[in-house]
């Protein structure tokens, strides 16, 4: 499913890459940028988290004419007099103007690195509204955003990811180079598909999907269970007649239903307890300790 997403996001789609401190999703984001450039799409990048050089490192020159980077990294809050792009400009009108100014009539793909910066400075409902309006607007074909899930409250992350048509949550994999991606894809018909894949990203920003974790795991484990009666110096196996005898055996305290009722409800003729209190036994129903000499 990861490869399908890399080959193209449907129009009006929102792809969110969720990462955490233990594994950065930025390399996967750069792979998506490289894949979009290879498909000859116009790509606009809002660069907040890292410098432009770091983000475009590894993207090959012939394609970078179609890449427009709006560098908000040096001054995202407008502390100097002339910021290139500030986080306050993350609104539908400003973004639409920005995209329309630079590119050809073809709608562009908007890449946001990272959405966490925007969420720290704008209210989550406003950000969600902006994202939704961008998708429906028409100036932008699709949006790809990186979100640091551990920097926000779970509610915020949940609300933003609910808008996404595809969600990729990355985590470190079993070996050093590899990572695990949990992919959720929501189609327009409402169907949700989920998958989990291990991948690694090469130097030239191509994603190599290494394995798809098998879903039919319970069946496999039963067959793989080791046979404990094998490879012993004594015999633990049972022959046919021994198996039959074992199954016929009744256990001492396992009663059948009839025996149980017979024991619990004694009929006439079964033993009865007759009690006649002695002089010393001060049998008082109310106070069992009445006969104590204290």
């Amino acid at each position, binding site marked *: 499913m990861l490869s399908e997403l890399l080959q193209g996001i449907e129009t009006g789609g929102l792809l969110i890459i969720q990462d955490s401190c233990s594994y*950065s999703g930025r390399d996967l984001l750069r792979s998506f940028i490289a894949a979009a450039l290879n498909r000859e799409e116009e790509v606009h990048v809002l660069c907040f988290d890292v*410098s432009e050089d770091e983000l475009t490192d590894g993207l090959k020159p012939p394609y970078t004419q179609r890449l427009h980077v709006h560098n908000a990294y*040096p001054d995202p*809050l407008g502390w100097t007099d002339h910021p290139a792009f500030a986080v306050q400009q993350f609104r539908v009108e400003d973004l639409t103007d920005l995209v329309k100014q630079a590119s050809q009539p073809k709608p562009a793909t908007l890449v946001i690195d990272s959405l966490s910066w925007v969420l*720290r400075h704008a209210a989550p409902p406003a950000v969600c509204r902006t994202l939704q309006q961008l998708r429906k607007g028409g100036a932008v074909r699709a949006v790809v955003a990186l979100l*640091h899930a551990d920097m926000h409250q779970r509610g*915020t992350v949940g609300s933003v990811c609910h808008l996404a048509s595809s969600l990729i949550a990355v985590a470190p994999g079993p070996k*050093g180079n590899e990572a695990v991606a949990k992919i959720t894809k929501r189609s327009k018909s409402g169907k949700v598909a989920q998958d989990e894949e291990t991948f690694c990203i090469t130097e030239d920003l191509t994603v190599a999907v290494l394995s798809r974790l098998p879903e039919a795991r319970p069946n496999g484990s039963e067959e793989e269970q080791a046979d404990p009666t094998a490879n012993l110096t004594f015999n633990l196996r049972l022959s046919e007649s021994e198996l039959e005898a074992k199954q016929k055996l009744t256990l001492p305290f396992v009663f059948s239903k009839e025996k149980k009722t017979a024991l619990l409800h004694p009929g006439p003729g079964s033993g009865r307890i007759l009690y006649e209190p002695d002089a010393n036994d001060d049998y008082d129903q109310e106070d069992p300790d009445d006969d104590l000499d204290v």
Partner: protein
Amino acid sequence: MFTELNSILSSSPDSVTPGEFILVSDRQSDASFLIHHFLSFYLRSRCKVVFLGLVQSFRHYSAVSQRLGVSLTQAKEKGQLVFMEGLKESLSVLIPQADNTESQAMNFLRDPPVGLRSLYEFVRSGAVGSGRAEDGAEEWGPPVLLVDDVSVLLSLGVDAGAVLDFSHYCRAAVCSQMKGNMVMLVRCNGEEEEEEDGEEGAEALLKGLTHQCSLNLHVQGLPTGYCKDIHGQVEVCWKRRQGDGPHTQRNLFQYKVHDKGASFFPRGTSSAVL
């Protein structure tokens, strides 16, 4: 500076990798010995150092650096070290005197919601000053910002978000623009499993800074408890690409702090054990 740590980080005073943001973090432990290491390391590399000493006095850092072989007073006189003594400067804001001009850098004490913009301006002017070569003044290398420590700003009423903005701006100015380095100390008191509210507090600050940094040195006590000969463990995580292959690399070492330094060794190879 600690020679063993230099070999672990593959760095030496003669060749300093530019543009690094080194985050020193600790959890229920004290990682300030690493700040002393980086201070003496960068002074020896002849870099211009801007030090925001928010938790201790100048005399304290001077005394420890003396033991590591570096004189802070001399460095300050020569113009290599720009030292902001947070404790003294905060007094000028809290107890304004007629003749004493209020320090602009700490004006967030007066009004915390304003944020750390003035502190950033102070850092910027301190770091940029290295460009001007006055007559007789020495030329120093790329600027380095050291902050000890960033978590104390949270207790002074500043938002975790404002501190993250401050570290972002410092990184953009010092690391990316001026090709210098940055070292920050951040401290956490709680256990890691505590589910914080996500956007407030020391945990959020630690997570945000971990996302921004390129090298993280995380200091903790030993998981097995107190030990006389081993003072704790350091986890070294390189976040950016080192060599080929975009992967994060983690190494775990144990350390012991001495009078004149600290020794680092792989787990289980302490001199007390072998």
